[in-house]
């Protein structure tokens, strides 16, 4: 399994503990910094939010890498095993892009529906002699033109 001696492996484990704890603390600090808990004015800087968001994602991926490669011993497995487990997760990049795009689209649809609901309509359903269904309402002409 592990190519390290027992004593070396023990040291790696406790270094890992310190490393993961430190990265977690840095993450919490960064998150609170962006939300304006440390310095209140930082709350209003939008680009800082994106920068810290990316930093947090990067640090979390680093933690994931460390757990998989050191704690789960992926480093000491053959390459084929590592690839057959790790490569399929690349599909998630597509999923993230696709579904976040979808989420954005729902948001603009929702706004569109709200705007449509605000529009005023003429009094009463249209007269029966037209080709429209009896429960059709027509937008007030002066509102639309």
């Amino acid at each position, binding site marked *: 399994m592990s190519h390290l001696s027992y004593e070396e492996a023990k040291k790696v*484990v406790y270094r890992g503990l310190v490393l993961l704890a430190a990265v977690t603390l840095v993450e919490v600090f960064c998150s609170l910094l962006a939300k304006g808990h440390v310095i209140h004015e930082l709350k209003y800087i939008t680009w800082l939010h994106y920068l810290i968001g990316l930093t947090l994602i990067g640090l979390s991926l680093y933690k994931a890498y460390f757990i998989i490669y050191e704690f789960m011993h992926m480093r000491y*497995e053959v390459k084929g095993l590592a690839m057959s487990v790790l490569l399929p997760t690349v599909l998630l990049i597509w999923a993230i892009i696709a579904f976040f795009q979808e989420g954005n689209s729902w948001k603009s649809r929702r706004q569109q529906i709200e705007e449509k609901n605000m529009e005023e309509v003429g009094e009463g359903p249209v007269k029966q002699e037209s080709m429209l269904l009896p429960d059709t309402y027509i937008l007030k002409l002066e509102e639309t033109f």
Partner: protein
Amino acid sequence: MATSDTVLEQQEVQGQDAWSGGKAPFRTSYGKLMMWYFLLSDAFTFAGFLIAYGALRFSSPTWPVPDFVFSTAPFGVHHKPLIFVTIMSFLLIVSSVTMVRAVQEGEKENKNGVVFWMLMTILGGAGFLSCQAWEWTNLIATEHMSVTTNPFGTYTEGGVYLTPDGKESDETFEVGESYLIHKAHEGHGEAEHGEGGHAEMDYSQGDHPGYFVDERGFIHRKFKVTEGPDAGMVKMEEFGPKAFGALFFFITGFHGFHVFSGVIFLFIIMINAASGLYMKRRNGHEMVEKMGLYWHFVDLVWVFVFLVFYLL
């Protein structure tokens, strides 16, 4: 004839225990490889949940600010954003480390070491579950969040609150800050700002000068908008996006269920190890190793749950 004989011979010589094919694929055992693939499929389940959270969050005009929602801890700690969940993260990290130690002792065939470190891991896992139980209790019983109701809302414009008799108070707020809608006649743990706790006030259902009480007893405070196109209008606090509560309980619940079943299996394997079962097996303490893979995975998922729910 002759060739098939040789093949059979080879299988008999080399095929012992190596998937009966002569050579172990990926130079690992069947059990460990299948544990890896189970974890891969489980990772996709969690990824699906977290991506759904992201998509719904993107689709909502507002979203409750995590460091406002998760700012309470036991023993009367309030307004301390993210402290409690950081402690929960540490518990999982420490239990992950003790699990690595158990696996290392298992490689040395040190029975007592395995049992001791697995017991430490169980304690870490149980501690995490207790913390989560407290967090859920606080959200459900004190702050009245449920799968369908989310009392955490976010202001879409700046404004100033009205006093109970309908005059402007000196309590102002900005766009993007979050609020919690309280329930009448119930303690709310003084977690949030708001005047929900005055017993002498009239909280009968219906419209009041400074607030509106809905049929379930939630007090929607009224405020006057001071900026934006609606400046001067009087509005009241609305519930936040519904999906927030459902996503929170489903995703942290699903993770908590993994931790719970992990603790049960850790316990069973610890008892087996203590009985000396694995000392007799040809593959030694491999069961402890497979359990280790699962337990680290639970920690790995928490890294992303922590990122998505609490940090971003």
